[in-house]
């Protein structure tokens, strides 16, 4: 397949809910054949954008093109060419997972029975169980199987990994890559950087309804910084003069900062001089990245998991 040029082109998009301005002159473009990350903290406007792309919500201003058409006017014909995985999928409690997969697949225009069977197997889904008994992760799997079993040009996925266990996240990534290899385009929204980092060619970052960053992963390298927390016996000095250290906060024997990947080595060599007692490192949460970058308060969201590196 493969659609050349822009599969999604959004410019100056505005959406209001009463007094809330959910999207404020938002811009985004997604090219054919890429996996595009759509990153932003909770409440940033990701779901709203995706729902406008699906013609479920009506835009209040701006331009939106999807697969060469108008998502509001041409909704039905466009929907034949795409598959959608909603955020926190809600299903009919008294239908089985298998029935829902067939239903969504058929209404979308048919699904590939071989792939359906394979996906059910790989995602370890029991299709004979009633949706009312599924956990959130299992409901997510139903929507994922229904989506990946359809051969479509575009996959719109709104936080598809929430609720999946880590093993299933790996399976999910495999199928996203496969979709790209088949020439399809994938828009993947998330509020966790690691999800997007593993898969995406390019990404758009949204915050409070505005596009704040867009580009390739390499261009947005600062997002791959590591957050470091260190405690030492001797007072720590000189960190502020090192290259690649950001958002530094410290007192005598304790420091917390973000460090660029290529500066980690230098920073660790520097720290050894102060007799380190403890060192923790973690990927920073999106909120922390924005705070480091813009020095602004963010509405609180989830914190990234902390992993202990040494001592």
């Amino acid at each position, binding site marked *: 397949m493969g659609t050349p040029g822009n599969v999604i082109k959004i410019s100056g998009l505005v959406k209001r809910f009463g007094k809330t301005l959910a999207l404020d002159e938002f811009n985004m473009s997604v090219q054919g054949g890429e996996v595009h990350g759509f990153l932003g903290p909770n409440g940033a406007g990701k779901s709203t954008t995706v729902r406008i792309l699906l013609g479920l919500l009506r835009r209040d201003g701006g331009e939106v093109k999807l697969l060469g058409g108008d998502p509001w006017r041409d909704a039905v014909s466009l929907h034949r060419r795409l598959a959608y995985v*909603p955020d926190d*999928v809600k299903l009919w409690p008294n239908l089985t997972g298998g*029935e829902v997969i067939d*239903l*969504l697949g058929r209404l979308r225009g048919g699904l590939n029975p071989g792939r359906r069977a394979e996906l059910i197997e790989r995602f370890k889904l029991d*299709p004979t169980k*009633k949706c009312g*008994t599924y956990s959130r992760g299992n409901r997510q799997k139903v929507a994922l199987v229904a989506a990946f079993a359809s051969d479509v040009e575009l996959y719109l996925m709104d936080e598809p990994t929430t609720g999946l266990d880590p093993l299933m996240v790996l399976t999910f990534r495999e199928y996203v890559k496969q979709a790209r290899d088949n020439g399809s385009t994938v828009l993947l929204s998330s509020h966790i950087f690691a999800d997007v980092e593993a898969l995406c060619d390019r990404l758009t970052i949204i915050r409070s309804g505005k596009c704040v960053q867009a580009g390739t992963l390499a261009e947005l390298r600062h997002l791959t910084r590591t957050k470091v927390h260190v405690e030492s016996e001797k007072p720590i000095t000189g960190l502020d003069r090192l290259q690649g250290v950001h958002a530094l906060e410290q007192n005598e024997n304790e420091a917390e900062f973000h460090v660029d990947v290529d500066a980690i080595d230098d920073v660790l060599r520097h720290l050894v001089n102060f007799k380190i007692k403890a060192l923790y490192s973690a990927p920073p949460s999106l909120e922390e990245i924005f705070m480091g970058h813009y020095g602004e308060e963010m509405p609180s969201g989830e914190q990234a998991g902390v992993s202990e590196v040494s001592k």
Partner: protein
Amino acid sequence: MKTLTGIGAMIRVALRRDRIQLPLWIILTGGFLAVAVPTWKGVVQTEEDLRAAIELFAVNPAARLFGIASGGESIGEFVMLEAFATLSIVAGLMSFLLVVRHTRKNEDTRRAELIGSSVVGRHAGLAAALILAVFANVLLATAIAIVLIANGLAVTGSIAMSLGVAGVGISIAGVAAVTAQVYSTSRSASGMAGAVLAAMFVLSGAGNMLGRYDEATVWVHSAWPSWLSPIGWGQQMRPFAENDWWLLGLSVAFFLVLSMAAFWLATRRDFGMGLLPEKPGPARAAPGLVNPFGLVWRLQRGVFFGWAIGMVAFGVIYGSISGEIEGFMAESETARELFEVIGGTEVMLDAFIVAITGIIGMLLGVYILQVTLRMRREEADGQAEALLATALSRCRWMASYIFNALLGVTLLLFIISLSAGLVAGLVLGDTAHWLGEITAATVVYLPALMVLAGVVVAVFAFLPQKTAMIGWSVFAISVICGPIIGDMLDLPEAVLNLSPFTHIPQMPAESFNAAPLLIMLGVALGLFILGLIFFRRRNLNLSSG
């Protein structure tokens, strides 16, 4: 008892969650009685009327489904015959929904997992639900007793009758406590408890029907099946006649035994699981399911079959009473006047058909609302989002609800016509004639029901959040201003005209008149088109999160 730690907090949480629902059950039940009891008293103003009415209940096996004659001497007894079975079912519904809500449903939605992790004993949730159920039934019984006594019925009998209702309620609460342990979803647990409630009604009804009628004492001696049912126990107490209190003990014992069984079962299963795993369903969708019409049919066919059974039963009762109606009317002057007002004719059988088809026609509005309001539920819950993101147009989606509602209600109108017509034919002879009369009188209600569907569809397109509220209000107003209640309340013509039901020709008392029906059909179609166009143009009203 460590397993009951935290029960106080659990009860407080449960009471808080039910602070609207519970009072509503009790107020609506009390309100229904407050309206109904004076009407019933109006029907049997003299001793002869009373005796005739109770004898009618006693000789007609179908009427005995609802109760048994116990002497034919007091108005309380008549009220007991009219109301006890219905009140028992209301108490039963309230009780099993309450128990399942605070046990199995809590686990389904993982709410209890949070509670379970804090300092709450493993039996505290179940115990709290059962205590709340007893409390709710005591309140319900108090409300019933107050209304009965306020209407001048005997105090002892009123208390016996209302405690009998509460006895049924707690019995079903015990049943639900067990089904909530046995089944792993709240849907199955409620379904099974509901089936047990239905079985209790059938048992008591069957025992009464098979029983023996002693004409001299106006007394029905029930057969043994009645004694297997808590509804039967309540009736055998014979409130307003013998007031046999010891039968209450049976209900209390039944409740205690089942509660203990539920606590024991709870220790034998894992949290969130039932003793019986949920039955697996089909792994593939049947061809009939994978289109929007088939989907809507599948989602609400249970509701349809419930109604269909109800319609058959109602038809049988209504058909079988038709044979005795002339005789009863001949004896009771007040009943005769009442039917004349409602039916608008002096031909008693015609008046009777008008009254009954009117009740059925309006009642089926509930079915219309059940189907069409589902649109709003699926939009708010999120299922509509997944569907409307496929190549399914909003028009087809909405049309499948409209079509399902109209097809279902048409079938139900024919089902009751068939069942009532056939039984009336058996009783009165000339089956073809009665089948035709009753079918015509029933099916003319379809255009009014379509208007109701049109209102819901249009409101859903313009004011989605208010759909249920406005839909039910319009229905309530249409019923109150409709041919039966409106006539009894003597409402002015202009107010009566507000209800679509007023414009239905009251066949067979009136002759068929196509004009109002065609106008209503036009209004309904207009509302459907309005709904289809404007739903296409609005934002879906989706939850954010």
